[in-house]
């Protein structure tokens, strides 16, 4: 199963992730 997020955000939004990284519920994914 997969979850796809699509959202609008300011251009200054930055993901704090790496492709292939393991994440857990509630872990920070990005911020403006």
């Amino acid at each position, binding site marked *: 199963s997969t979850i796809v997020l*699509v*959202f*609008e*955000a300011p251009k200054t939004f930055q993901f704090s992730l790496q492709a292939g990284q393991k994440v857990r*519920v*509630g872990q920070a994914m990005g911020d403006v």
Partner: protein
Amino acid sequence: LANAWYDTPTKWYPLHIGVGSLLLVSLHWRKRRQQALEDAEAGDDNAPVRLKGPWQVHALGILPLRSASRLWGYLNSLELPVWFRPFGFSFYAWIFGCNLDELDEPDLKKYKSLGDFFYRKLRPDARPIAPSLLVSPADGTVLHFGSIQDHRRVEQVKGMTYSLDALLGVASGSSTPTSEEIHFGNRDHAHVDDTEFANVNGIEYSVDTLLGHPAQRQQSLPTSETKDASVEKDAALEAGINMTDNVNVALDAGIRPLLHRTPSQSAVNKVKDGNELFFAVIYLAPGDYHRFHSPAAWVVEKRRHFAGELYSVSPYIARRLANLFVLNERVALLGRWRHGFFSMVPVGATNVGSIVVNFDKDLRTNERQKRPAPGVFREAVYTRASPLLGGQPLKPGVEVGGFKLG
């Protein structure tokens, strides 16, 4: 000749499995080729998404994956003997790397079946929510993320994209409350002038816009119960969502804010100046915790259920099967947050075809029924959950639903 015709006994032989498989692949390939030719002749860019990829993908396409998924779900719902449960689930946890220390119910004997264990709950303190604008909605692996720049196409993997509109659905009008919803809260003042327009307290909208295109929209259901307005205002403040003029006007008129919105073709209207569309894809492996949570403070206005295929969504298939997330069964939860449009799309797979949304008891996925054509979806609006916000408000980290086996 007549004697040969009437007297020769018929002897049946089993077809070799290899010959049978070749025949099925050949028939499937011919059917796909015919569809591709029809699409090309029609010259339609919006033709329904078809299966594309190498031969492994087409071989996968001829398997009855939805039936297999339902059978898998049934087998895993069978109650296991109590004595077997600790060994069986411990073995499963060892194979797939589940952390049993996080379980809300640590006694493995209490989980009746593998399906029950698969949909396990975690201790409330097992997943602290980071003070960030966007947090992970699930345990899993980040497959891909980035911004959407190339004409509303989302990148599945490097160089392979799919249409954002195909993922979220394209409506022929605005959101479509049922007739019950049109008159909600102001039944005495509502009336329909003619077949073209309905007039509710001076606010006009086209009947076609209201009811949507019958070919694309099968059903629109109001869900959840109305809450107190003060609770909704608190939720709005918490979610950081501005109450727009449109919403206030609609409230004054005594009808749902959703009716007042501008009709649009796409789920995502033009983004605001200074904003961009972003996406992130998280893959949940079989051993992962399979409930999903809210990734931000937002309001879910509606859901669109696309009853598609149930291909595996493993990274191996995602790299090979084009339009994987558009072909598979999925539930698009659409709404807004403080920066504009927001959506979360749980996509089913062969082993986990059942998608649950906690605040939507009407949602039924992976059902045994004739599937609608690709791109067709069932829609429900959540205006009754909070008429003030026009949807279901969610805080970051709140459990939204989950994936069940089969």
